[in-house]
């Protein structure tokens, strides 16, 4: 095996150019010198999250909005699982999909890094306690999340973020088909799923009244603990 360096190969800079585009140019110099396939490259690839390229302002806004929606879904399905008041099939769905959505929360927080926002507080007002109302609401949220992600896929600046959103988008569509199947509705109603706007998502969330003011669990009073 011959040791090739990217520098030697990339005479016209085409590779570095594309690489910069993909990574925001933060590591171009390093990789010019790195030996391809060598240990140095291997080590270099174990990049800490802090070194990942910065998201554009537009991508941050998109991801933050997604994160809010994922927080809501994670909380709603987790609560339904905890209460255990829905039907066995819906309970199983809540368990699996709740875990997936909790995973999405962590994943999007990872993409945002410092720009990650905190979870809102929720009150699901009995929706997590009634099988019919829960499944209808879950269908609405899963369909809408998949639709939103299409719009965002077109809007994002970064192909890296696009790739990430795509890998979440198909999972939301799986969730949607599954809960529809449980609810007795056709899992795939159309040959093409349409995108939707952020405004429509906001409208749905507002209409549920799920988002509440946070309970005040922090205070500034003098502690009166025993000491």
């Amino acid at each position, binding site marked *: 095996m011959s040791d090739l360096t990217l520098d030697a190969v990339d005479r016209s800079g085409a590779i570095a150019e594309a690489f910069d585009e993909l990574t925001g140019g933060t590591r171009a110099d390093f990789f010019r010198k790195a030996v391809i396939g060598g240990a140095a490259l291997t080590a270099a690839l174990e990049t800490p999250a802090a070194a990942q390229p910065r998201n554009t302002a537009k991508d941050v806004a998109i991801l933050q909005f997604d994160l809010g929606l994922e927080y809501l879904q994670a909380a709603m399905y987790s609560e339904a699982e905890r209460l255990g008041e829905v039907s066995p099939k819906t309970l199983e769905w809540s368990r699996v999909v709740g875990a997936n959505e909790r995973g999405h929360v962590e994943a999007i927080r990872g993409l945002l890094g410092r720009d990650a926002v905190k979870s809102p507080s929720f009150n699901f007002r009995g929706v997590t306690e009634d099988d019919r109302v829960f499944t209808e609401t879950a269908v609405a949220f899963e369909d809408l999340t998949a639709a939103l992600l299409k719009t965002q896929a077109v809007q994002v600046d970064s192909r890296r973020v696009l790739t990430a959103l795509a890998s979440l988008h198909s999972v939301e569509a799986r969730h949607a088909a599954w809960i529809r199947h449980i609810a007795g509705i056709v899992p795939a109603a159309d*040959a093409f799923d349409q995108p939707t706007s952020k405004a429509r998502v906001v409208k749905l969330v507002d209409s549920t009244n799920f988002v509440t003011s946070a309970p005040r669990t922090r205070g500034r009073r003098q502690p009166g603990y025993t000491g």
Partner: protein
Amino acid sequence: MSSLGENSRDLTRGQLLVRGVVGTGALAAGGILVAGLPKLAVSRPSREQDDRVLEWLLQVEYLQEAFYTDADRRGALDGELREFASLVAEQERAHVAELEEALGANKSSKRPDFDFGDATTNRDEFIPAAVELEEIAVSAFNGKVPNLTKPRVLTAMKIVSVEARHVGWARDLAGRNPAPQPADSPATQDQTEAAMKNTGFME
């Protein structure tokens, strides 16, 4: 710099460069390169590249369209499976039509021939086959969506969303977890081709 034969017009500048300078021969994997070395991701989206990608995705859709259409026509399935096959056939046909229309005169490949054996009539074979095909579609699309220009990104997302619904439905019918992972993997061209060959349906 480089002296390449065929397809030089289709390769990006970076790919041309690499082929020319490096020549043939494989790098020993340092744990980074998977078997069947990944191709260089230097290409930017372009209309011309869109056509190549859509052409490729069309191949994936042809397989599905033929599978469900065959199952629908043979009419050996019953109950919900029959409904599933019939509805999905209709939707895959729409996908094919959409991709063919997007390609227009640039479409170059034709529908391949397939042999589905009993997979389109025997329910015990049909469901796992449907799951397999839909998983291929979802991962193939996810693999190529980021390479497309924005208008085509939307087209592809509208289709893969429905393929993912199909896979969720089929997996539930199979008694399997419809969403076993929080994120779906994008597949490379080689992975998709290998998976398609593995179905045993390609002639």
